[in-house]
């Protein structure tokens, strides 16, 4: 846990939402429309009402259903799925294919998707090469490194080498080097 961070719920049971009202309706239509029912008010635990409701639905879904929801999701739905991966029961529901969702998000140029993909689930499951590339892409795209859950713990010599090269390229072009890169360039 990073300094100043609130204690985050570990499972959907701790989120404090009830989605029983949606039982029996097609998930493919309930999931995208849920904000219009539950709103997006903050629950005070780091989750909004719609994010929490979506997480709850995911915990009850099969791995194939989760993959399909992600495949057809708009950006808000994709963000909710990526965020929910940090919850134990959602992690279990998604199974081995969770990393494919991360990879899809990391391929985009949308900083919101990139940052959310690099949450605790990525720290646990993304392989070293993919993690390094994703971090470098964050630097490139302007996602603050403070948003990357796996840093500084997963920073290794090769990542520091990549960051140093990036900084050198920036300096050669007469462009500024992002401040949050500095701690990785020393020593």
């Amino acid at each position, binding site marked *: 846990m990073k300094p100043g961070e609130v204690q985050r719920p570990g499972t959907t049971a701790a989120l404090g939402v009830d989605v029983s009202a949606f039982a029996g309706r097609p998930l*493919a239509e309930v999931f995208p*429309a849920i904000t219009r029912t539950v709103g997006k008010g903050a629950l005070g635990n780091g989750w909004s009402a719609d994010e929490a409701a979506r997480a709850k639905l995911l915990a009850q879904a099969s791995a194939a259903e989760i993959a399909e929801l992600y495949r057809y999701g*708009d*950006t808000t739905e994709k963000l909710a799925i990526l965020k929910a991966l940090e919850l134990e029961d959602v992690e279990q529901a998604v199974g081995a294919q969770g990393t494919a969702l991360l990879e899809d998000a990391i391929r985009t140029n*949308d900083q*919101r998707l990139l940052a959310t993909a690099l949450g605790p689930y990525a720290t646990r499951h993304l392989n070293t090469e993919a993690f390094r590339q994703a971090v470098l892409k964050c630097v490139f795209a*302007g996602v603050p490194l403070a948003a990357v859950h796996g840093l500084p713990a997963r920073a290794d010599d090769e990542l520091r080498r990549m960051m140093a090269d990036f900084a050198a390229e920036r300096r050669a072009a007469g462009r500024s080097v992002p401040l949050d890169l500095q701690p990785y360039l020393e020593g």
Partner: protein
Amino acid sequence: MRIFDPHIHMTSRTTDDYAAMAAHGVRALVEPAFWLGQPRTSVGSFVDYFDALIGWEPFRASQFGIRHHCTIALNPKEANDPRCREVLDVLPRYLAKDGVVAVGEVGYDSMTPEEDEVFAAQLELAKRFELPVLVHTPHRDKAAGTTRTLDVVRESGVPAELVVVDHLNEVTVKEVADSGCWMGFSIYPDTKMDPDRMVVILQQFGTERILVNSAADWGTSDPLRTYATGQAMLAAGFTEDDVDQVLWRNPVAFYGQSGRLDLSDAAAEDTFAGNSILRGARS
């Protein structure tokens, strides 16, 4: 002058266009799903296109402080290709999305039996998802096509106030005005309508239930035709308030019927304070 372009195909436009639109007062727009010039041959091509309309394109628009919504449908041109018919099966997924504010563009191109079926099926979807409908009228045989369009809408039971019949001109406007449907006009550099002809129609029919769009796409078109029409209205003696009604309040009222129009934040969706979102788009 604040502008809501109710019909523009931003997928085909550049970031220069977004910048120019923002500089001329465009704060919100609706991008209808239509055809792309090059015919598609599989459902997958449509799905990727729909994904762009609810994913990448709103992101691109937000970088210029422009709010992007879309409409989703199987367009009448490609409704005639049996390889594309199964697009109808994926529509419910998309019609449930927050950013989708109408079913469209539907209607007629060549008025074939296939177009009849697909049009009717999508009017039923509009009822099921309680969405307004954006109806394209054919470029050829327009008057007959418009009459037939209004008949089909009437038979469907979709209330007239939930329907905009688009690409109208001097010949087709009267019938749509009498039907109770909204009247849509696409202002083009050469064809369809121009700003001065639009002003004459506004003088004859008033400023209510009228939507003015640029319909800019991959052809010869101009995303600032909405602005040009506003200027032409002022030059002809319309008030600032008249212009605001036509270019902002009318589209807000029409698409607002979806209950999904979100204009709360017409500014760029900054993910992180102090970071330029533009940088990532170029990466």
